[in-house]
Structures are given as C-alpha cells and as structure tokens.
C-alpha cells in the first residue's frame, strides 16, 4: 500500500440503525425510570467524579440510548456510585442504578468477566 501521508477518517456520526442498542434495552427493562431523563444536566453538575474527569451522566444517558457503546465503556467506570445524582434528578430517575446496570450489562456482554 502506498503512503499518502493521510487516510480517511471514521465518521463521528451516530449511525442509529447500525449501532447495537442491547445495553439500552437491558436498562430500559430493569430500570424504567431511565426513560424519564430530560437532559437537564443536574446529575452531571453535582457529580463527584465530574470534578476530576470528563464524566457526565447526562451525556452517558444519551450515549447509552443511541448505542454509542465504545464511549459508554470509557465513561461508565469513572462513576463512584456515590448517589448524589439520584438525589438531584428532577425526574426521579434512579441514576445510580442506571450506571450500575450499565456496568452489569457490559459484564454480561463480556461474559461475566470479574
């Protein structure tokens, strides 16, 4: 293969029809309140982890719903499960369980790796 000094770039677009949304379905099933998020960002604002890193539950929620799993994997483990977000959520989403279930869902995908 020739060297051109450049190569084509993976599109950033969320290809909704191609993405695998199994994780989202798993969470919807086990934590229905997940559907109630209105993206207000209250959770992200109060988040303990967010002071130290780019964790944002608001973003994570959306990425899960869209099946952007690579980024979900990257973010989900940054959570300390401290539960502040659950206390501030105006829609009463059980946010702590959402993350917990996400981690669980990926553990299932990775076939129960400890």
């Amino acid at each position, binding site marked *: 293969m020739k060297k051109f000094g450049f190569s084509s770039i993976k599109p950033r677009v969320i290809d909704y029809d191609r993405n695998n949304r199994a994780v989202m379905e798993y969470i919807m099933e086990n*934590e229905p*309140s997940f559907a109630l998020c209105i993206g207000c960002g209250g959770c992200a604002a*109060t988040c*303990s*982890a967010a*002071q*130290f*890193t780019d964790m944002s539950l608001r973003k994570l929620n959306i990425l899960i719903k869209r099946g952007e799993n690579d980024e979900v994997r990257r973010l989900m*483990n*940054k959570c*300390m*499960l*401290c*539960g*502040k977000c*659950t*206390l*501030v*959520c105006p829609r*009463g989403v*059980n946010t*702590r*369980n959402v993350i*917990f279930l996400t981690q*669980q869902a990926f*553990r*299932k995908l990775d*076939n*129960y790796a*400890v």
Partner: protein
Amino acid sequence: MQFDPFVIPFNLGLYFIILYCVGTCILWFRDLSRTDKLRLQRGFFGRPFVWSLREIFMESLIHRKIFKVNPVLGYMHMSLAFGWFLLIVLGTIEADVFGDSHLNPPSKAIFFRFFNPEHGAEGFARGYSFIMDIILAFILSGLMIAIIKRFWSRIVGMKKTTRLKTLDKIALASLWIIFPSRLLAESFTCGAAGSGSFLTGTLGSFFADFLPSSQMAYPFWWLYSLSVGVFFILLPRTRYMHIPSELFLIFLRNSGVRTGDKYGSFAEAQVYSCSSCGICIDKCQLNSSAGINNVQSAYFIKGLKRNDDVYDISLNCLMCGRCETACPVGIELGALRMIQRRAGEAPEDMKTIWTGYMRERNQKIRNGLNNYTKVFKYLKPEIIDTSPEVLYFAGCMTHLSPGIASSMEKIFEAVGVNYLFMDQEGSVCCGRPLMLAGKDREARELIQHNTSTIWSSGAKILVTSCPICLKVFTESYHLDLEVLHHSQYIKTLIDEGRLDLKFLNQTVVYHDPCELGRGLGIYDEPREVLYHIARCQKTAYERENAPCCGGSLGNMQLDSRKKTLIASDALYDLTSSSSDYLITSCPLCRKTLRKAEQNDTPEILDVAELVVKAISDSARAEKLYHEEPSEEVINVETQ
C-alpha cells in the same frame, strides 16, 4: 413381645437423620478456615460449650427471643420444641423405669404405651402418665396455634408468613400428624386396656364405648411411626433442617466464628439455620411501606437454599439492619447479602450450584484484586501540608445539605479549633457506596486515595458528618487518627467544656440513622448532645427499632416514589408525638425525610444545626466585644 413391624419407619427416619446430621457437621467442620477450626476446638473444651448449652436451652427449646418479639409465636415454638424435648426425655426415663429391661432403643421409649398397654394403672406410674399427658396436651395446644397461624397468620399478630414449597408442605403435614396420631393411638390402646390418664384415658374410655378400640389402635400406631419417620427423612430438604443446624451454629458462634466477607460453612450453617419464621418480613419497611414482599431476608435465604439466582433480591434491600437485629436465630443477614452482592449475578449455567459458584466467585474476586486495572486513574494524590488539629470530611451527601457543613464550621470557629475542611471543593467518595454495590476493588481504590490524603494531613482527629463515610472510615480504612462522627466530636467538646451551649426551651425527637445506630452502635452520643440543649422526647421507634428513612444507598433498585413512601411512613411514626424539631445526624436521612415533609411536620434538622442554634450568646457577645466596642460604652464616655 418387644418388637412390632410398625416401628420400622420411625427407626429408619431416626437413624437416617442422625447419620445425616453427623455427616453434615463433619463436612462443615472440614470446610472451616484453620483459625476457625482452632476456635471451635478451644470452644468445645471451654466455657463457650457451657454458654452454648445454655443458649440452646433458652433459644432452641424455650425460644426466648421469639417470646420477646411475639409471645403467641414464642409459646407456639416453645410448646413444640420444648414439649417434644420433654416427651422424649421423660419417655425414655419412663421406658427405663417401668420397662422390663433397661437401656431400651428409642422406639421403645416412643411407643412405650403400645408395648405396655396396662402400664400406669395405679400408684406412681399413674402420676407419671399424668405428666406425659400434660406434656402431650401442651404440645397439641402449640400445634393448634401453628395451624391457626398457617391459615390466619394475622391472628397471631403476624402480617406476613413465608410461602412454602411442596416438600415443606408434606413435612409440615407429617409434623402436624405426629402428635394427634400419637394422641389417638395412645387413647385407643388405653381405652382397650382401661389405662391412661386424664387425656388419653378419658378419650380412650370415651371411644371404647362405641368403637372397637383394640382394633382401632394399631393403624394409628402405624400412622404415628410413619409420620415421625417421614418427617425425619424429609428434614434435610426442608426448612425444618434449621432445628439441627441451629445447634451447630450456636456452637460455632459461641466459639467466636463470624461470617466475614466470603462464603464458607459458617455462612452455610446460618443459611440452613433459618426457620423462615418470617419475623424479618414483618420488620422490613420495603414490605410494610413500599409493598415489596419478595425480597426480604427469609426469601433471600430460601433462594440460597434452593440455589436460585438471588442477585437481584440481594440488591433490593436498604441494608438498614432491622431484620438482623430482630432475627431470633441471630443470622448475620447483612453480611450474607453483601457476599452475594460481591459475587454478582450467576451465569445461567451456574445458577444451580450456588454454593460452589459462590466459592469460585470469591476466589476469582480475590485473585482479581491482584490482576485488576484501576478505574479511578484520574484521581491525582492530594497532599495536605497545613497539619490541622481536626480534619473535617463533610461527605458527598453533606454537600447536598450544606446547612450541616456550615454549622460544623460555625462550631469549629466557636471553639477556635485549628481545623481543615478536607472536601470543601467537593468530595472524593468514601468508597462505602461502591462497597454496598459489591464493588470492593473499586472501593479499595478510593479508600487508598483518601487514606493517603488523610495521612498526609497529620491531623489528630478526623470528623465526618456522614455516617456512611464514618462506617467505612472505621471499618475499612487504616488510619492513625481518631475517627469521630460530628455528634461524637461535639459531645467531647461539651465534656471538655470547650463548647458553651445554652438550653433551648424546646422538645425534640431524635431519629437514629441506620449506619450510625444499628451500623456502628452509636446511639448515646447524639442523644447526650441533645440532652444539653433541648428536651428529648421518647418514641417507640428508637435505637435498634428506629426506622430507615428509605433513602439508603444500600438499595440499588428502589425507585424514588417508593423511597418517599418509606420516608413518609417513618416520618409519621417519628412525629406522632408533637415536638418542635425532628433531629437526625445523617445528611441523607435529613434530605430524604425532608422530601416527605407535610406542612405540619416539625422542622427536620441535623444535630449540628441545632447545636449552632444553642451556641450561647455570651460566647458570641465576647467575640463581638473584642471586635468592636458597643454603643453604650461610648455614651458613658461622653456623659
């Protein structure tokens, strides 16, 4: 003639169960860790043995604890356990004294009446059989209650009773048949022989008038023997296994064996010692307030026995510890749940071999600790170089009720202590929430991070406002300083006379947070602080019996509506007596209870917030005086 074929079922059952129990004990013993083995050995030849005997008598026979919780239930258990015990003991003696030979096999004692129909006609024997009849009556009375409980549980003051599986039903039936059949068998025999005492005798003679007693007796003796035999044989596969298991458990416990954080034979012994009495179900607020009635400890343990996947159940629990304090068998229910949480969900193929699965998981997790990639890499070590006297850690939850943190700061300032607000800019979580989710390895990272920060400070005292943090600080951190909840710290300040408080002429009710009270046994310090500044009102919901606010981080699944249901019930109980303030000492309780406030509920405050109200003006005035001379002084000058 001293043998009859009908005793065979009884004998089979008896010897089977004896062998089974001995076998299990050996297996369990073999499975104990080395230290636990030693403990047990030492215990067996030491004082613990005596305690155990005493406990076995008090709990397994008399059922003192159940009596305390519910007398009717207590009587039921006592009559069956203690009654049967007496029946066997006295029966053996009877057989030994009045029988034609000594050292008889058990069957002879049990079926004594069959082999000696005429016995007890007169004299001392007459009196003895009278005693035997009393005992039988005693048992039957208990049996009656048992039957009533099964069908109309509310009558015996229980809201819920555990659901049974078929084997349990059969075992239960056979248990129920045992004593009526004995009664009838004996009655007919006595009727035929004209012997027997007030119960068997009278019943016997009554039947004898219109029934062919001699023929009737025999089948009932068969029934009696069969029912006992069946009961014994089914025992291992039913909840009644708790009877033998509990004996072993008591020995283990008295010898100082504890559950710990992994599954082992002590945990297993506890699982099998659960009688599914259902007291935990009544105690559980998920049941009484939120209407969730399939996750309580009784069901959790039943699931364990059946090798179901109980992961979900294990997560749906407030971890408030109310069931554990109430459990008559003293099973460490919280610890068992935590084991399951750490182990996580069983893959399909492993669900049926739970015990093995648990051992494997625990092993894996322990190995995992070594080959585990950090997830909180983004946390950079923090150094505190200004070595303060007191290090104050508010905790995540306190940041959502800042009134508490600011009150603590006021208190620190009032006593002029050199303190540092460690997480003023926001906390790194203490790690407890992760632990409650069964994620110990992740928690360990946070613990290490915070530990190094705290060590670097060189402070003498670590004060936290959050019981959740306090629990993990005291239990899982290795720190070289005194760790106190702010209520404890305030108490020491008062004792040392450093904090000058005035008495607020108001009445307060104190709510014990789960983690602080049942979790760490800190009941008195907050109260003693309150005694200094207000009139404390007693309620029926204090200390061990305090309700959970419902906001607990222990429960992963409870939705916000149900949390509020629990909170409002708790609030209703706590504020039934009119008071000016409802005081708690946990930011999470405070927040959760406030969510359920009605307009007639008293203001809900943290103990620290009330203390600030009570910091006496003289202290303040003094400060003021030093800052600026007051008006009057100047006027005096001018005149």
